[in-house]
């Protein structure tokens, strides 16, 4: 028997931004790691008020943090290189999207 659950989704950015704890958990990291990314300008925080426990993040930051975490873990690159690779990948995706229109 299959159980059916009906649920309403909310858009992360508008109504329910991701907390620093949720972001750290989904990257399998500690919140200090997220703080380092924000301090180095690798990751934008949506609301960067002190203390860091109150920081929240938009969707794009989550995807980026996961990508940086994976690059660091699987390719053992340092934070600066991981950020650069993530930037280049984003650029490639943006350009490909533009190309689709032609």
């Amino acid at each position, binding site marked *: 028997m299959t159980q059916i*659950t*009906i*649920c309403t989704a909310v858009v992360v950015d508008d109504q329910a931004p991701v907390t620093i704890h949720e972001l750290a958990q989904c990257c399998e990291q500690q919140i200090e790691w997220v703080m380092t990314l924000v301090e180095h300008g690798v990751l934008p925080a949506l609301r960067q008020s002190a203390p860091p426990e109150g920081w929240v993040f938009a969707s794009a930051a*989550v995807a980026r943090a996961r990508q940086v975490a*994976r690059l660091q873990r*699987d390719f053992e690159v340092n934070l600066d290189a991981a950020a650069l690779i993530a930037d280049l*990948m984003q650029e490639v*995706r943006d350009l490909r999207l533009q190309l689709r229109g032609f």
Partner: protein
Amino acid sequence: MEFKDYYKILEVPREASQDDIRKAYRKLARKYHPDVSKEPDAEARMRDLNEANDVLRDAEKRAAYDGLAAGVAGPNGASPGPGWDRGFEFSGAQGEGPNQAEFQDFMAGLFKQAEQQRRTQGRGQGFDSGQGYAQPLRGEDHHADIEISFEDSFAGATRELGLRSVQLDAKGRPQLVNRTLSVKIPAGVKAGQMIRLAGQGMPGEGGGAPGDLFLAVHFAAHALYQSNGRDLSMKLPVTPWEAALGGKVHAPTLAGEVEVNIAAGSKQGGKLRLRGKGLPGDPPGDLYLVLDIVWPTAENEQTRAAYEQLAKAAAFNPRAHLGVSA
């Protein structure tokens, strides 16, 4: 049915060392990463690679995977149970159009889930009153992708997602459990945004709240529109006389057909902006119509004569700037 064999995906033998697995993953990731790969199925291959790597790189998860794989093998011990070829992914059900959502890290999540249940069961047996000792722990969040159409984002949509998980039975053996989520996708959602389904992640521990399920939204390729945030753009074919003389033409939008004014002297690639006709939101996106001038062929006497007349009347040399004569 094919078993989702992580060793096969990473092209390593079952006895491969952690170092072999790391090297194999890196080599294949360079080949199949969708941002660099020319392979047609790069995205799916990369997802499998990540899933396989997440499990096999971790000694504990790898042991659990080996055990789980052996546990679901059929009576002869050779063929895994039905449904294993689909792994633990979301599978789209009902609804029109592409409806694929996949759990990127679901397999990894399963082991955590099994681990957590084992701990909970162990605690129940170890203490007289397990509840007194249990510290409430919030369940983990799950992350997955979902592909929707522009129409879904425009009007909002309901999607049914089949969700598969592993739960341990009373004897601690892993069992597959199916459940279906009927998800109401909010209107105005953009590509790259995440939507949150509260309480649909992993169950909490010791009375803790369940985690959430996050779905990262992707748009399916559309025959007419491209998106940039909430803005949409579309090529609008126009005739040379419509572009040169101006006039009213009809264009499709997500909200239905509209009449637009083409200014006299419009050029190829010129853009018209229809304010608020993109994806909904506050503020709503715009729809850009990119003019694409299309010429009829000189296939009969009349059109041939018209082109000849135009050639005489226009005295037009499009190569003048190249310094050559007509």
